[in-house]
């Protein structure tokens, strides 16, 4: 199963109920967290993607299992993310990160990673980084990537402050990546 922060059961409900329930459920989701919506309405596949786009959240993807659609949406605050400044001094392009052969650390949420990441990239979501830093070597070269470079900027700073010496923030991030994707979904 893909990890989500909040689950919504909208199974058995017809249009427009999955959308209405999703809107309400989103009120209890913190910014940056992922909501999983379980629905049997086939229209929900197109509708939830369109709804996310309209409202300004990130539609991560959906998969079907036994007639149930599992949709994943990450709550965004567009105004905040547009003004967020990237301040970590050491950066690299997507291409530089890939040809380096070094560790690529993907700090997006588990669901985002599951729906497509650079083959070989290591997943530690931003919120878990502080506890899981010990999985990384302090002196190894690490290219930190997220969707647009904002979370990876914060993660890079966090790692540098913790004593990591060879950290680079990858820009533009997964939004600009057109290469092969590894997935953990069907």
């Amino acid at each position, binding site marked *: 199963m893909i990890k989500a922060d909040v689950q919504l059961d909208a199974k*058995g*409900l*017809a*249009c*427009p*109920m999955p*959308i*209405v329930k*999703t*809107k309400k459920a989103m009120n209890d989701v913190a910014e940056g967290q992922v909501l999983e919506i379980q629905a049997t309405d086939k229209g929900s596949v197109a*509708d939830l993607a369109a*709804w996310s786009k*309209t*409202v300004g959240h990130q539609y991560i993807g959906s998969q079907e299992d036994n007639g149930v659609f599992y949709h994943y949406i990450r709550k965004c605050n567009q105004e905040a993310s547009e003004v967020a400044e990237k301040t970590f001094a050491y950066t690299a392009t997507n291409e530089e990160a890939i040809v380096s052969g070094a560790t690529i650390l993907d700090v997006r949420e588990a669901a985002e990673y599951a729906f497509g990441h650079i083959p070989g990239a290591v997943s530690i979501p931003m919120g878990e980084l502080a506890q899981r830093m010990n999985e990384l070597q302090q002196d190894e070269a690490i290219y930190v990537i997220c969707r647009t470079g904002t979370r990876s900027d914060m993660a890079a700073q966090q790692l540098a402050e913790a004593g990591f010496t060879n950290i680079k923030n990858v820009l533009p991030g997964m939004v600009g990546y057109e290469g092969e994707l590894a997935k953990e979904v069907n």
Partner: protein
Amino acid sequence: MSNKVAIIAANGGLFDAYKVFNIATAAAASEKDVQIFFTFEGLNLIHKQRMHVLEMPAGKELFAEGFQNAQVPAVPQLVEMAQELGVKFVACQMTMDVMGLTKDDFVDGIDVGGAVTFLEYAKDASLTLTF
């Protein structure tokens, strides 16, 4: 672009109710301002008693089962949900006068207005729909 959706509900059958309220609730759930102007038979859709017994178009009664199988919410439920999501209902004063209806005949929380009320709201709406 304006965030307003203006809807005219001018027909009073069961299918009309779903057309109106599905679009209205979906728009409201997408964080749009929605106002519905109920006029002529459209008033049935928010009439306290009639909204429970809206008719299928003649010859389409066989769809009753389909509605049940698809677990489509009942019209009164949709009305309540629309209001909860902030959809504004405006009943047409002229039609009410013609049909001898008062504000008390309708669900709570509606406004009563005339054609100009709707036009004023709709003048800068990004979408205007008629059902």
